[in-house]
């Protein structure tokens, strides 16, 4: 077993003039740690983990950091931290501003809100996330829990086709195969 050394950046810019806000450091730490826990979930195997598509690896870590940051900062009194309508005057970067619901194909195709869309109950299509882009993903899927995906599905997921297969085999009430296909077609 290999225990990775995780390094998290302290400064926003290359000139080291601006430090990240504490929520960014917290969120990024969750993101990087999520990669390690993901590896363990793949039956503890680095060989299994490296076969997972980059989009699925990064999107899982994006979802974990969003989920944990939301819990942490709601407890600290920011009631809608990380929600789809969260965009303060000095917003965090994704996924915590607008729950990254403004993502589109112009953005990096590895760091996506794919897993966020699977567990949230918000359909972003056509929503104006001013000053970020308007939502383009038609997300009619909801009702999955992060805990269930992590404990039961994650070790079987290597790419979009195996993700689709697992989601369809474990659909919550009210979610159809068509809705799952529609959501995944945007990724």
């Amino acid at each position, binding site marked *: 077993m*290999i225990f990775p050394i995780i390094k998290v950046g302290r400064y*926003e810019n290359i000139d080291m003039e601006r430090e990240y806000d504490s929520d960014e450091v917290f969120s990024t730490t969750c993101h990087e740690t999520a990669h390690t826990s993901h590896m363990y979930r793949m039956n503890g195997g680095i060989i299994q983990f*490296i076969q997972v598509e980059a989009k699925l690896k990064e999107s899982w870590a994006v979802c974990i950091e969003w989920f944990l940051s939301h819990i942490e900062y709601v407890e600290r009194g920011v009631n809608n931290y990380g929600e789809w309508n969260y*965009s303060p*005057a000095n917003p965090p970067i994704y996924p915590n501003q607008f729950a990254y619901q403004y993502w*589109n194909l112009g953005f*990096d195709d590895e760091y996506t809100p794919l897993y966020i869309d699977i567990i949230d109950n918000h359909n972003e299509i056509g929503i104006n996330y*001013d*000053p970020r882009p308007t939502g383009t993903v038609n997300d009619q899927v909801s009702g999955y829990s992060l805990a269930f995906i992590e404990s039961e599905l994650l070790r079987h997921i290597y790419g979009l086709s195996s993700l689709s297969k697992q989601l369809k085999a474990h659909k919550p009430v009210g979610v159809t195969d068509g809705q799952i296909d529609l959501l995944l077609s945007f990724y």
Partner: protein
Amino acid sequence: MNKLPLLLLFILITGCTKEKITIYNAYVKNTTAHQIKVVPYFSGVIDNSKILLLNAGDSINIGNGFDRGIINHGGFNSVYISGSDSNIVIFDNTYSITHYGQTPSSFSIKYYLHTSPRNLRNYLNWYYTAEDPSKNRREAFYLFRFIEQDYLDAR
């Protein structure tokens, strides 16, 4: 036994992965012959520390930040825009026009909706260019020019 393949595999597995990043800078430029004041409203309240003042010809950086990954024209955040409901643009302390983020239930006398090509808050109305100094880094540049028509629309 030759351990080189094992060593190479170890380095491959444990080697660091460099994060991709997109840096952005956003500027507003006053190309009119008038003084311009840009006033943001946060839940209906003005934050005086976030009022922009542009004399004729002035250019100001209002957004400097980054996104993870290589982003193609994804917009930007600015403390002068993000989190506010609207920006009122006032010319020569006399004529004003409101730039809305979301469409409100009632309107000011002169306004640009978010869909207007002259709305400051819609990042698609900004001139955009980008370059990639390396495969892991993109530097994006946004520019919004206030033009004489904005002044005429506010009059």
